[in-house]
């Protein structure tokens, strides 16, 4: 097990700076998730850790060893790609064992390691198939198997679940979490999906515009977002954020309140408004209000809440859950 340290890492493509100085310490065995909107540089940062992109300036150490200028294969990393990147002309067994066969390991050793990985991922019955004949989830497992046999110090995942359908995604999320619990290896996981970030991470790194916005545990980011950007990004449905006169009356530049921290009443409350739309999700319902002094506001309510479109309601924040930002 080894940690990863990034010291003032920068990346430019010509005059365009993509990564604008990142300092980050990832502890050994930690499951770290890089999250952010598209174009924030999270994949580039991961590819720099992998060695697929050159580091323009800064230093990168893995397990205490400076690997800034090392080849990817010498960094002790393994990577799972969004597209899986399985070799189409090789069987599952050959795909998993490719790295070992390149290293000219004896055939018996390759077979043993491939079988062990396949066993752990329930791929044994698929070893002779080509990737073409596998489902999305199975392909993903093969890609993970290929990473496991390298016995890496750090696993890198680049949006591995974004090509899967919703139910399979939930299942694979669980499998990757299990894998982490079993191997206890450092893992770095890139996603734009805040649900994946919240459910899997020990530590979330929120990136925006090539810079770190905030680092912390999922609940710390949820409870105490440092910036309106993090507040809007973490949590689903997203936090209601207001600027201008409404925020000034609340005594700040930006005022935020999460939908689940709003109570609705038919008789009285802080903000009067009209119901524009209701989304009933089963266990709970999302009520879209037009609040007179603030504008649109989303509130989370109980699934059978007796509200109707056009109804007049009063929304009130739950004390202690309001967020006030000075930016």
């Amino acid at each position, binding site marked *: 097990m080894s940690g990863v340290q990034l010291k003032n890492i920068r990346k430019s493509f010509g005059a365009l700076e993509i990564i604008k100085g990142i300092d980050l310490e990832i502890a050994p065995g930690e499951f770290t998730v890089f999250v952010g909107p598209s174009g924030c540089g999270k994949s580039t940062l991961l590819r720099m850790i992998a060695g*697929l992109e050159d580091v323009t300036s800064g230093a990168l150490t893995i397990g205490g060893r400076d690997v800034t200028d090392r080849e990817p*294969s010498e960094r002790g990393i393994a990577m799972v790609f969004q597209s899986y990147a399985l070799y*189409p002309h090789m069987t599952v067994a050959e795909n998993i064992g*490719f790295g070992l066969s390149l290293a000219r390991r004896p055939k018996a050793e390759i077979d043993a390691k491939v079988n062990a990985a396949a066993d752990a991922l329930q791929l044994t019955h698929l070893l002779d198939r080509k990737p073409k004949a596998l489902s999305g989830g199975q392909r993903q497992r093969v890609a993970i198997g290929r990473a496991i046999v390298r016995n890496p110090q750090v696993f890198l995942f680049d949006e591995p679940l974004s090509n899967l359908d919703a139910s399979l995604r939930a299942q694979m999320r669980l499998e990757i979490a299990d894998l982490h619990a079993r191997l206890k290896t450092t893992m770095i996981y890139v996603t734009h999906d805040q649900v994946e970030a919240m459910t899997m991470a020990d530590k979330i790194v929120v990136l925006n515009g090539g810079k770190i916005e905030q680092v912390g545990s999922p609940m710390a980011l949820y409870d105490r977002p440092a910036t309106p950007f993090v507040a809007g990004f973490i949590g689903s449905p997203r936090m209601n954020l207001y600027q201008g006169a409404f925020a000034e009356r609340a005594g700040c530049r930006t005022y935020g309140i999460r939908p689940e921290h709003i109570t609705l009443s038919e008789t009285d409350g802080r903000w009067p408004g009209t119901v524009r739309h209701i989304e009933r999700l089963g266990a709970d319902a999302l009520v879209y209000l037009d609040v007179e002094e603030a504008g649109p506001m989303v509130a989370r309510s109980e699934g059978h809440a007796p509200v109707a479109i056009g109804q007049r309601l009063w929304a009130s924040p739950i004390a202690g859950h309001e967020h006030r930002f000075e930016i």
Partner: protein
Amino acid sequence: MTRTRRATTGIIALALAGIIFVIPFVFIGLQAGKSRTEAAMLAFSLPKAWLFWDNFVAVVTARDYQLLLAFFNSSLITVLSVAALVVLSAMVGYVMQRRPSAVTGLAQIFLLVGLMMPPAVVPTIGLLQSIGLFKTMTGMILIQIAYNLSFSTMLYRAFIATIPRDLDEAARIDGAKPRQIFFRVILPLLKPVTVTNIVVQSIAIFNDFTGPLYYLPGRDNVTVQLTLYNFQSAYATQYNLLFMNILLVTIPPLIVFIFFNRQIVAGMTAGAVKG
């Protein structure tokens, strides 16, 4: 469109294609079976007496079995130049597609020049003579490679563009050196386009008439297309033997085409839609 109308248009199309493609071939076959005087009339008619075998023997034995030597020479040129073309242009195409730089930009211009500029025969002969490759098989093979390298490289480069770069990167992480990435990951995936390339190039090179005519003169260097001159002269052309010769020379490319027809189309359209 109703079924009968669809069938009618189909039949008309087939009949037209038949006239354009099959009639000339039938004509060759008929001429090849006639006697010398009868063939000289160049009529589209059945021969009075079938002299197919006699003509065949006459063509094969002409000039001390020259046709067999020609087949050997043509096959040698075709096999060696196509083999070199496949290996060279796949590697060049890979580098040009994967590593865009000033150098590959310049190479791109040369490729286009190679496609667009007609080869200049006299200077080429002068060059060949000065380096001692004129009238040699080696010289002819190198010329065939040079003539076809542009097209072949473009074909590979376009195909390699459809192979995701993730594969190269996954192999790199697995510890593959650039050479291993090419030979163990990329090259096996080039099979469809390689089949296309082999078929298209070998037919073109096997059928090349002007190349050997200019650069490979000499009795011992004869190639199949040049044997057609054997039965043609200013005063008397033996049409029956000429057409028999055409028939024999056409057969190898035809066989290649019939067998690989499907793969050619597959290679040409590969990557056109996501598989």
